[in-house]
């Protein structure tokens, strides 16, 4: 992504203590549901859409994460498709890509960026 930092607005969603190491939690921003995945070893948070397009249920935060071919993915807990954490790409269906947000840990705040 080539968005300039000054065009982004960082919004706080929750605290680091709300996250679960190498696992996911769900958060809400207005009508949008997000799945937040926390990798403490890399001090990173990924934010992707919580909506699973295959089951039409809001469940991705409750999927198992892991790496496939060297990239972090979450497996849908319903029908087990894998989505890349970096860009939301579904590995089983090339035409399916989920929304993702830039996310960061700012001290203990968990923030995502919205485009202005």
């Amino acid at each position, binding site marked *: 992504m080539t968005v300039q930092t000054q065009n982004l607005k960082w919004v706080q969603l929750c605290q680091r203590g*709300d996250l679960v190491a190498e696992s996911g939690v769900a958060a809400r921003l207005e009508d949008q549901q997000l799945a937040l995945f926390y990798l403490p070893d890399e001090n990173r948070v990924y934010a992707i859409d919580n909506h699973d397009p295959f089951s039409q*249920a*809001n469940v991705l935060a409750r999927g198992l994460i892991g790496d496939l071919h060297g990239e972090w993915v979450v497996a849908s807990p319903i029908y087990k498709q894998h989505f890349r954490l970096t860009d939301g790409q579904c590995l089983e269906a090339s035409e399916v890509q989920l929304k993702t947000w830039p996310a960061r840990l700012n001290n203990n705040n968990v923030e995502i960026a919205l485009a202005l």
Partner: protein
Amino acid sequence: MSQRKDLIIIGNGMVGHHFVDTFRALNGADQWRIHIIGEERHSAYDRVHLSEYFQGRSHSDLALGTSEGYQQAGIAAHLGTRVERIDRAAHTVLLSDGEELCYDKLVLATGSYPFVPPIPGHDAERCFVYRTLDDLDAIRSAADQGKTGVVIGGGLLGLEAANALTSLGLTTEVIEFAPRLMPVQLDATAGTVLKDKIEALGVRVHTDTATQQIETLNDGRLRLHFADGEPLETDVLVFSAGIRPRDELARQAGLKVGERGGVCIDNHGRTSDNDIYAIGEVALWDERIFGLVAPGYRMAETVAAHLEGCDSPFLGADMSTKLKLLGVDVGAIGDAHGTTPGTLSFRYHNEAKQQYKKIVTSADGKRLLGAILVGDNSAYDSLLQYYLNDIALPAEPDSLILPSASAAPALGPDALPDSATICSCMNVTKGGIVTAIDGGCCSVAEVKAETRASSSCGGCAAMLKNLVDATLEARGVEVDHSLCEHFSYTRQALYHLVQVEQIKTFDELIRRHGRGHGCDICKPAVASILASHWNEGVHDAAHVKLQDTNDTFLANMQKDGTYSIVPRIAGGEITPDKLLVIGQVAKDYRLYTKITGGQRIDLFGAQLHQLPEIWQRLIDAGFETGHAYGKALRTVKSCVGSTWCRYGQQDSVGMAILLENRYKGLRAPHKIKFAVSGCTRECAEAQSKDIGVIATENGWNLYVCGNGGMKPRHADLFATDLDDVHLIRTIDRLLMFYVRTADRLQRTARWMESLEGGLDYLTDVILNDCLNLGEELDQQMARIVDTYQCEWKATLEDEQKLKRFRTFVNSPAGDDNILFVEERDQIRPATHEEKNRLIASA
């Protein structure tokens, strides 16, 4: 760059798309500039599975190609654009947007349109056809306000359309002009059996019925008038009375067309103009139109080859079909009407099960000429192979369709010639698959990717797997048993590593013996190994990230993301007070309740944040977790036993409760089910369980490794007349040995079959202690039994663990996408359609 030629394909349906795919695979495509012109705004999609559009699948789910995909391949796709006319002299086509394109070669893949009989009133607002996604959108929006639907046409497509209407929630009726359903494929009896089955599913069928007029009522509804009989009112009407080729461009251009339509082609797919080809449902070959996708694909391949200067003639195609119509199996092979003189037919008709099977053979009974199957397609694959490959039939041909204890003589992969077609959609033969395996493919997935077999309708999947497995085995290929890309070990090997090296965490195991970070395959498998070896809480910090959602939240996730809850009801025994508690909790939280097969009560529809509150009430009333979410002991089912039953030999309920309490919480490679029957009448069905106990006059008979489910297996008698102590010791050892040695997700039945020596070996290990493992197994089980804790109780006492049970970390609200409707006085998840309706009306 050399001068590139222009190839235009008119039509972007399944066949047009397949042509482009095939042509590009044959050719570098660099000598051609390819243009696709599609009238629909959507790129090509899978029309065979159209009805799934109403079950929540979108265009992108059904799509075969995308505009971006075409663009990346350097193909100019003009979607949402019609061709106005073809100018053969100038070699140009004029598009509806005014653009003019030149061609060197042109392929007509314009397909067909649904025939609408000229019944007065057929053009009313609520009359539809069933062909495109736009048609389906129109039907859906009309169905939104309606309750009933009618399909005119009881052929294959008409029944598909009826299926689609029922999935929209409409009460649907089918009108067929002929005296039976699917008159082309079925005979009279088959038509009647199909009709009965479909009517049993709630779809009324009117055969022999001619619609004379369609009247539009004041409120927009329709009233159908028939030649005889009462009129019928409906909200939505769909015509599905056959197809007609879309040959209007060809007619305009002066190409030769058939008397009843269709563009005439030769064996190379060429029309009367050498630069113009026709493929699919618009093409007329030998006076025939082929209304199935597989022959269209064959034509596409013929034309692609011919453009490359190769000769791969189209010489007709097999029109056999196998389908599930409204959930009913229907199969038709070859000439099932027996119109060839001197043929013999064999019929099997079971009115109780509503099954009909018929085969037609040559006069000498040696060759299969045709077959009809209704209600049971299990014989289809074998029959089709006999038919297509002209394989000699067994001496008693009817054995192929008669039910018998020993089942029909199986036609294994070995019996097939190399020319046998395995996948008729993609035209892949046995020889092609064997070649792919010889070329290095080592799994079904690789063979699928290489040959595209089983990538369209999927009907041949089972046969393909058999063939691949048998071929690999015959080649002596060591099939890769790696658990996943992170561990090159089987579950058993990992178990031994954990045991021998005293490994206590996933991180340690993957650091020492694996690579990467793990995935959704290895993490739960290792979690189960660690749990059954060390019996630490599944929620201890080091294990949290390994559990799938069911183990994490100690409940069973359902299709809408809500959970179901199963408290333990050991042996199926429950007090009235406890029943009242379950009822009150279900009522307070508006949960759907159902009695399970394991004699307990499942409560459905709880959201994540409600689970702790619900469980607090259950625990306060004395319930424990039922482990319905875990690969663990589920239930011990029992009959009422000697306490009440006049036939009972022993207290089966008491024994069931003892066993259930002993093994509850034991983590295993898969779920484990028990049952205890109080006498030989076996009311608890113990012989279908992993562990089955049946009372005798002198004690207990123990049965092991039975299984219901997908592939049932009758349990084997393992030991007889055991007293309580020996019964428990034997089960302890057997279960522990299973936990140690079974593969991931392997039930006891498959585990036993996979052990070299099978039952005899198991007897040796468990009863004769030939490995000298007995005491070790006893101790390990004792440790697990002693350290049992109710996971829900432990969770409720731990603030940190409870934090996870939040639907959102930053809001106390629930998920407002979870919506229920009522059915039979209880809730159920709203369908996609119902949700849209509920949201719209809110």
